[in-house]
């Protein structure tokens, strides 16, 4: 009996050495636990810094914009790892406001399974399915959005982008104001999702929290694949341009799919 027990212990000890040796060689065995990921949204305009109320930019429509306000909603984050496996961030916690004015430009995704992530998929705005599930599903997101001017009140729903300022155009005399309020309405669903590649791997571990540095190009809103001229959206008095509905919102929705790129990913713990 004693001998048998000794044998068993020896076998177990051997087996455990063997097992630990093999797991050392297999990196996927190390992917235990959860970590965090930071997303930093660096708002810019066609490669330049976006400085509210100061810098002006001339787009390919020949219109020169000075931007005073640039707020938007990003949502429904899905991380895609090196094997193509998707990790969806819990939908009920997956709605965020980005506000350039208050410098609310960073998001922290928590409890991300350890992994080597290569891509990220997300949406601009609030998807209609979640919207129609109501406030429970949205975790009273309305209050935060309202505080950042990202809600409509004359019709109900979220503004996905608030993009405002002043502009000049070759066809207009003097400086005019503009307001672009992107969103869905009960006729058109202007929510879009897109996938953005990471140029380097975002390693998430219990002790490693990478920071993803997005470049967000506000120029793409009006000057992407579709060209949207503010000068063609003037109010009857000719004092201001307003884009809040119609086919222009559909063009803008399609433009937004190329608004986000990832410039680089910082390894865990580093500052962006």
């Amino acid at each position, binding site marked *: 009996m004693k001998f048998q027990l000794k044998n068993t212990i020896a076998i177990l000890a051997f087996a455990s050495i063997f097992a630990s040796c093999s797991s050392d060689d297999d990196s996927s065995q190390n992917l235990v636990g959860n970590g965090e990921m930071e997303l930093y949204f660096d708002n810019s305009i066609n490669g330049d810094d976006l400085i509210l109320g100061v810098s002006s930019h001339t787009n390919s429509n020949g219109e020169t914009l000075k931007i005073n306000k640039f707020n938007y909603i990003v949502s429904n984050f899905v991380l895609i790892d090196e094997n193509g496996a998707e990790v969806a961030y819990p939908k009920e916690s997956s709605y965020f406001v980005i506000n350039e004015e208050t410098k609310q430009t960073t998001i922290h995704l928590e409890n991300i399974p350890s992994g080597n992530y290569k891509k990220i998929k997300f949406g601009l705005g609030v998807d209609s399915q979640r919207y129609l599930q109501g406030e429970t599903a949205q975790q009273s997101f*309305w209050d935060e959005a*309202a505080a950042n001017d990202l809600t409509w*009140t004359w019709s109900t729903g979220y503004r996905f982008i608030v993009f405002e300022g002043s502009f000049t155009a070759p066809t207009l005399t003097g400086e005019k104001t503009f307001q672009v309020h992107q969103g869905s309405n009960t006729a058109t669903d202007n929510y879009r999702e897109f996938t953005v590649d990471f140029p380097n791997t975002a390693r998430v571990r219990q002790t490693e929290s990478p920071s993803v540095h997005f470049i967000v190009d506000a120029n793409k809103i009006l000057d992407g694949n579709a060209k949207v001229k503010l000068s063609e959206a003037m109010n009857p008095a000719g004092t201001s341009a307003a884009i809040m*509905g119609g086919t222009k919102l559909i063009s803008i929705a399609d433009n937004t799919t190329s608004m986000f790129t990832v410039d680089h990913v910082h390894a865990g713990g580093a500052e962006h």
Partner: protein
Amino acid sequence: MLVAPNINSVLNMKKILFLVLLSALFSCQNDDSEDYIDVESNELLELNIPSNFPELAQDISKNLPTEKGFELGKKLFYDGRLSRDGTISCAFCHEQSSAFTHHGHDFSHGIDNLAGIRNAPAIQNMAFQKEYFYDGASNSIEMLSINPIHNPVEMDENMANIIAKLKQDPAYVKLFKQAFENGEITTGNTLKALAQFMTMMVSSNSKYDKYVRNEAGGSMNSQELQGLAVFQNKCSACHEGDLFTNSSFRNNGLPPNPNLNDLGREVVTGFETDRYKFKVPSLRNVALTAPYMHDGRFGSLNSVLNFYSNGVQHSATLDPLLNQNGTLGIQLSQEEKEAIIAFLKTLTDEEYIKNPLFYFQT
């Protein structure tokens, strides 16, 4: 909670008695306290879908009406504090006796006696509708209350102010605690409570309903039956099914009022093809909801039918159904008009307009 469960054997009877007395005293003092609320008593309400109705058009699965949520929603519906100066409640323009419309007003007068540009629509069978307001400005039963609350000529208030006011009132503190799991007075819970109240507002017991469901009280006379037949032949393409609307947006050929220049559905969508289109309203309780049309221009059902037979005006977006080879409108004889009106009166649901469930009693 108040009762300490593990009173151990060291305590003698005197001490136990003292504790019981103390707890009784404590609970007396704290009847309104936040701690002393029986959350268990908040039961789900039964929402019966009438057999002649379609399925719900709203997803209410995350906000199922409960006894306390409904009670809270009702209290909010009748509370002027939802407006800037405390004078205009939802019920101000949506009176139960006229199927929750503003009887006798073409445009409802809201805050500071300002007038809007549209007639207050009936509130009934809301969870069966996909879109709300004449222009479809909302498609969510939870969010629709945002519109009248913020409208500067209706209630002119915002949610943050409302929440601050409600938090001052112990009755609301208690009701929110009872009605919602997190118990908090928030924008979300306020909107949800109003939605629960409106979800339960089902009107389905008119004479016509009893007729189609073969129930007692459902016998229609020959003129009403004639009206039903004419209606099905000439009106039901838009006023479809037993909700009496297909929820589409149509230009019915009303000459636009130049003083208002209300573009209708185009206001929401931005599409010129939606100009002068308005939501087809349900005709339930229609005999009670005068005046008629989105701007309340017609005072009687007779005027409405005269318009459809003689007054339809052509424009780019006129509904094709109202333009048959150049003949505008709906051809109706006097006898047919009278029969239709007799039929429409069978859509009045006395149970609904007198149901004490929907009336706020203080």
